[in-house]
């Protein structure tokens, strides 16, 4: 139960410490920020070793040293390349890291190229051309496929692509299409903004929920007391800073 209460106090303290940045930058916020960076680096370090290096590399290579079955000599090369990557830290040896980097870049370039072309180009083109299939479609629907909706989508895609086409000067039909494309893009950006507000508000709801949860007698009103402590500490740091500036 003591652990539970300490948990609640830590959650509230760190939440309010970060929120104190809204008033102004202060030592409590900086402390919380640095703890966050340290803990996230530590967490990432543990997971990289425990979930990737150990099962995918060490478990395949270790049997080779004990003459147990299941060892893969080829996997030793991956480990060597991995260590070569670490040599990037020093200026004189950083050229060695180009070898494993080449493997990474080549792999990701190929995967991205084929994956995007297949899904984002062919898939989306397929969807756009399919929209021209008017059989059995009603004239207009608010949220289902309809003739007017599909024609607007096809027209909109062509106009937006026209806006990004710079091989020809934007004159005449291309100019009109490009300008229409801008209007479609503005609606897109406005919609994205609306959803961004929705997403960020949802995160805030989560924090408010925690502040209420831990502001009960079981947690000794952690929220109110932590808020008072943090405000006091910020005030003290302001006074100290002003005195230091005067001297």
């Amino acid at each position: 139960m003591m652990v539970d209460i300490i948990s609640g106090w830590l959650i509230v303290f760190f939440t309010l410490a970060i929120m104190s940045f809204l008033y102004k930058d202060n030592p409590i916020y900086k402390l919380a920020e640095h703890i966050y960076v340290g803990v996230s680096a530590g967490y990432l370090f543990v997971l990289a070793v425990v979930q990737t290096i150990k099962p995918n590399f060490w478990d395949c290579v270790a049997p080779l040293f004990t003459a147990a079955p299941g060892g893969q000599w080829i996997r030793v090369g991956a480990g060597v390349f991995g260590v070569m990557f670490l040599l990037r830290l020093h200026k004189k040896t950083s050229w060695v890291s180009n070898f494993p980097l080449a493997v990474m870049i080549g792999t990701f370039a190929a995967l991205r190229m084929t994956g995007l072309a297949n899904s984002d180009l062919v898939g989306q083109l397929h969807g756009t051309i399919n929209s021209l299939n008017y059989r059995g479609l009603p004239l207009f629907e608010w949220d289902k496929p309809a003739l007017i909706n599909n024609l607007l989508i096809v027209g909109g895609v062509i106009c937006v692509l026209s806006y990004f086409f710079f091989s020809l000067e934007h004159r005449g039909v291309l100019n009109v299409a490009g300008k229409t494309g801008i209007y479609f893009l503005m609606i897109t950006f406005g919609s994205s903004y609306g959803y961004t507000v929705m997403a960020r508000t949802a995160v805030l709801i989560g924090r408010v929920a925690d502040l209420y949860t831990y502001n009960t007698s079981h947690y000794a009103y952690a929220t109110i007391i932590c808020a008072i402590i943090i405000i006091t500490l910020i005030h003290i740091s302001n006074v100290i800073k002003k005195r230091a500036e005067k001297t």
Partner: protein
Amino acid sequence: MKRKIPFFITTFVGVFMTAKFFLKISLVEAVANEIEQWCLIIVAFAILLGIANLFRLNLLTIVRRKPDWQYKVILLLAFLLTAISGFTVFAIQGDISSGKNVFTFIFYNVYFPLGATMYGLLSFFIASAAFRAFRAKNIESALMLSAAILVMLGRVPIGMAISNIFPKLANWVMIVPNSAGQRGIIMGATIGVVAVGLKIILGIERSYLRGE
């Protein structure tokens, strides 16, 4: 040699990974699968590189007593505590994802509130940015503003409580003009990615290697 061999590696790896997509030949698939395993391991070592760099930079700040060096001490202590607790838990119980221990305590009670609140701050800044910057100065910005207001109103229950038309309009805006705009951006960006990918694999684009 220092530069030629990496280009050869990039081309070799790129060709096999591209070939795997198109060809169902067992040799190609076997080589490509092993390349993928190598890549997984190299990426994990890249994470270790990032951690090592973080350590080095912060240690230098502490040793040279640069401004705010005291906070870097806290940072490194937090890192060491998390890492040591994680490996200790793994050594004792063989996994880090279950049970009540120091590692999960740090995750739920330190990492979680800090990270969540960092991102929660953005909700305040987005409201402030909307007030200061969102102006309907011309047709384009008026369109953007209208779409934003319509979506914000229509996608939440209060929009439907005010009028039935708001959720219908908001949904229509998302399904029709927004889809068209997004699709145009996606297709345009994809053409760019394919072009750059080909340039990298063919060795025309070399800026990713140090010293070029």
